[in-house]
């Protein structure tokens, strides 16, 4: 199975990267960009074939390694 994980900064946590991208887009002449947030996108190929079990494993991976839950949220989607 394939798992896709999005790791994003929690609301209210400073996002220097997003801020810098927004600024750079402005200097490139792109107007009307009100906000930019940058996160991570992780794709995992899993040997597991049961979706529920796969989700449960990825959930633990997020908590233990992939996300830093002090400042980040994560979202998981599992695909056949």
């Amino acid at each position, binding site marked *: 199975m394939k798992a896709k994980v999005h790791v994003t900064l929690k609301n209210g946590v400073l996002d220097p990267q997003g801020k*810098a991208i927004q600024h*750079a887009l402005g200097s490139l002449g792109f107007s009307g960009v009100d906000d930019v947030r940058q996160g991570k996108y992780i794709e995992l190929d899993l040997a597991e074939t049961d979706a529920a079990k796969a989700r449960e494993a990825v959930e633990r991976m997020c908590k233990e390694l992939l996300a830093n839950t002090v400042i980040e949220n994560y979202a998981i989607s599992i695909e056949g």
Partner: protein
Amino acid sequence: MKAAVIVFPGSNCDRDLAVALEKSSGKAPIMLWHRETEVPQGLDLIAVPGGFSYGDYLRSGAMAAHSPVMREVKRMAEKGVRVLGVCNGFQILTEAGLLPGALMRNRDLKFICRDVHLKVENTETAFTRPYTKGQVVRFPVAHHDGNFFADDELLKRIEGNGQVAFRYAGADGTVSDATNINGSRNNIAGIVNGKGTVLGMMPHPERLIEPKLGGADGKPMFDALVEALS
């Protein structure tokens, strides 16, 4: 030699590069702010320094590559003005399309700061002429994203044209995976453009220009530029 050093927000080796240029030429280079839309007349050399332009947020060098001054740098490079990009400067030159390839995160994901040995490959440029082909020199590196990538086809072209200037090597000149500090393809540490007028390199020649700093292998590069461009 009339030289300029570009200063981006977040450049931090701009002064070091200026000191090295001044030491060889006796003349302080012009410091050019990234917002400049015109460069002074009659420049012989434009140096793009190391550092963390725009924090290296998004990708190293990506935002700086789009600075107003870089349009001018490109225009000057087309006219044959020599351009030297060191470290972040190399990343900026690839992002700006002045040099081929891309610089990715180091293989072991860590920032590396130490002296490394380089094998000099191409001595036909104004930058590398004082070295002999195959010579081993020692320069410091200090980077997180120095892993040079080019796909097979591009790599073949770069190698075929003799565009490789330096490779990561051992003290005895061996080039192997064990001497590849960051995972660069073919151990590439620095390349030139097709005409040999633009050099980008991850190691810092400006950091070893006097024995007191631990070595002077970088000094000949600046001396040679002064000689060639005066």
